[in-house]
């Protein structure tokens, strides 16, 4: 009995294919079939934001997204964010400002923040809090996350003007 179907999508800019059970979520396919365990899960019910990835540039909860629905779409995960050996400014700022403690919510928050900065390069603190309000974090108290995103936004703006 065949239980799997073929899936083709773009992950972090590269074509990816997998043979997956049709009921699997994007989260499961990323972690179990494509070996990209950087994307985490905290509830698998769409409550915590740990599994956030970008689908066609929009932050989405991969635990609520059926993998087959991503056929032909563009998925970005934490593994694709760094620029070669150098960290993306968001990654560097999260590490330097203490925006990541246990690190478990970190990939989801960083991807959510990337979507925010892609669309709004100069967010206010309130806009940052609003954008990340769906990402639960039990360690940091959010303040350092907000500070990190603010700092990364400034660095990204500087890169553009250079």
């Amino acid at each position: 009995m065949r239980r799997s179907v073929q899936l083709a999508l773009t992950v972090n800019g590269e074509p990816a294919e997998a043979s997956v059970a049709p009921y699997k979520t994007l989260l499961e396919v990323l972690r179990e079939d494509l070996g990209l365990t950087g994307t985490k899960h905290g509830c698998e019910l769409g409550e915590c934001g740990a599994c956030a990835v970008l689908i066609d540039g929009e932050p989405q909860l991969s635990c609520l997204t059926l993998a087959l629905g991503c056929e032909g779409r563009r998925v970005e995960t934490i593994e694709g964010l760094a620029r070669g050996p150098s960290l993306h400014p968001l990654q560097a700022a999260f590490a330097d400002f203490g925006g990541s403690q246990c690190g478990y919510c970190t990939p989801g928050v960083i991807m959510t923040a990337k979507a925010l900065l892609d669309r709004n390069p100069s967010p206010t603190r309130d806009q940052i809090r609003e954008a990340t309000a769906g990402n639960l974090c039990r360690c940091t108290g959010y303040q350092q996350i907000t500070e990190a995103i603010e700092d990364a936004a400034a660095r990204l703006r500087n890169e553009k003007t250079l």
Partner: protein
Amino acid sequence: MPPPGCEMKKRFDIVGKPRRRVDGRAKVTGQLRYADDLALPRMLFAKLLRSPHPHAVVEAVETERARRYPGVHLVLTGQDFPVPFGIMPVSVDEYPLARERVRYVGDPVAAVVAVDEQTAVEALRLIEVRYRVLPPVSNPEEGLQRPEPRIHDYGEQGNIHRNQSYEFGDVAEALAKSELVFEDIFFYEGNTHLPMEQQASLAFLDGEGKLQISSSTQNPHYLHRQLARVLQIAESQIRVVATPNGGGFGGKCDPGGHEFVVSKAALVLGRPVKIGLTREEVFYVHRGRHPVLFRMKTGVTKDGRLTGMHLQTLLDGGGYGSHGPASTFYTGVLTPVTYHYPRFKFEACRVFTNKPACGPKRGHGTPQPRFGQEVQLDKIARHLGMDPAELRLANVTKPESLTASWLRIGSNGLAECIRKVTGMSDWKEKHRKLGRGRGAGLACSTYMSGAGVAIYWNKMPHSGVQILLDRSGAVIVYCGATEIGQGSDDVLAGLAAEALGVDIGAVRVVTGDTGITPVDLGSYSSRVTIMAGNAALQAAERLRAQIAAVVAETLGTLPDRVVFSQGRVFAADNSGTGMTFVEAVHAAEAQLGTLSAVGSYAPPRALGKYKGAGVGPSPAYSFTACVVEAEVDERTGWIHVPKIWIAHDIGRALNPTLARGQVIGGVYMGLGEALMEEQSFRRLPEKLSGALVHRAPSMLDYKSLTALDMPEVEVAFIEDPDPNCPYGAKEVGQGPLLPVMPAVANAIFDAVGVRIDEIPITPDKVLRALHAQDKRVGPTSFPAVPYPAPTFVLPPWEGGDGKEAKRDAAAAVV
């Protein structure tokens, strides 16, 4: 005496400077491997069948259909686990899978191991369990009233698990002689850790056929011991690897049924077996904050001097012992550390109920009485017309003093914390001056820098570190400490780098692996910085001594004049010459052979000599003072907290970025507890089952603060290095959570004049209080608890010797 590590240091290269934590890069790139990120070839998956009843006899478990289901490799039941476990030797009362009794909704009864999770879930449905339902005990009052049926066949009596009483000096007399006596009853609802990572474990047999388990545990050493016990195999045949925890907060301290299940399955099948708990299951595993009802009677003079306290606590333990015996002590023992009580009495009782077991959560047993103590002080200040800060300053304990219960308080920056936090918050201009609807509240706290005794009695060190020096110049630090997000790996790396004068990038830490690293008891009781840190410094000092003895002659100086700094080794009075650290290592290795040293640490012995004196002592106590500003809408009861100020006596901040993160994270968790977090239960209608079920075994219903709810937090550190701690650094992981709840309650009173004497403080309670005659919401009665006759001990200032005394001896002295 200078703190460990400070003898040779005039200035620091690393300590005290904010920097990126050593595991920071792996965390922001998604490279760090948590337990559920691990996979092995031929890996199978386990799922647990959990009880739908809060209290029932398991009469039969029929597994045949599940065993025959395609894709199923193994079905386990309680019959496969004849040996119980329990983290504390005095309450070994739990089986990996329930045998003849289930004690809460969610108690695991059977396990299926299958080719994938989906198959395991399908097979679980084919297991038939025949239960004979027993009446459940839903709270401690019910447990006291109804001793039968007993939830456990051990404990003090009926459904009382632990029951104890201690009296330090004649408290009845102290209260009778007091000019004023304040009596309050408070309730603190239970809440849970809610770590972002759900527990996961992967067990397999290594190349030699030995069992290895990688697991999200805070305490690999205790898990190691319990696995050997339950599986009946030698500890030397088991290796426990604590994977980086995606948050712990105490929730991953107890061994979990799932860890035994995958280990047993791997042993039986010879294949890797993994389990990942669902979020709902994490709520069932729980081990969180005990709901505590408590009565606090405090004597005070008219000019605001505390004369004594009588504290009675009643803990809702849930279905198992867990850390309960310790939790019971902690609802009392740290209460007299912040303020001087000439006499102190505390009685505590933990009752079994048919709910998930309670255990250690950040602050372990102490936030509950601390909440009442700090709210009551606010009431006393109000009554006396004193500034709450002045009342506290008049009563703070002194550095190098003793409590009535014989705890030795070393360094103590509480007064400085109060002055600092009232200054930075502009307290005098805020308290009682912000106008109707806005208020400011103050509260203080303390916490241990590590518990003075291990969970099981032994005379061995609490932490061990081995440092290996590679001829590349790399420094490899081995320690059983566990990284749960708090930054223990970074602390170890920073201390080793500072002591050996190398760049932090030259250090690699290997931690939390019972197969490789020396024993460290675990990441609990805020013990790692102090205990593993001191062990690391001892190992580093020994290496320095080895190297210095070899290179001193070349440097033209004496060994104790050799300085290690910034990757160089040179004479103290001639920093221009010298050699690189790598050259020094080469010289030493050429003469001495492979370079390695070990260090270990055991805390000082307790002063108290009475039975039970082992709970409470610590090498050092941190202190904290906090001011919360609150706005309360009197039409809706809605509470808004715009800002929080906090000052923490940390001794020394080793990495200020980490330390600040711990403080703000603690404030966050405390504010969540204050305003919304509650692990509460409801009883299903009798026609359904009458069962006690979670109100909220999900993250949507279990409310916690989001980025939008979190106010700005302003942090100050009081840095007065403690002589027992590495470079003087005390704890910071737990203390800063503790003053937040009472500070919120006090701010709400300042804003609208209502007293909410229970946690959480929700808008409906504020509204109710606003409309109540006494402007208060909180418990109004305390049940008759059959506390035992107290262990009576004379305080140090009444001629005591720290041993149990006869009460009439006290009368003779007084």
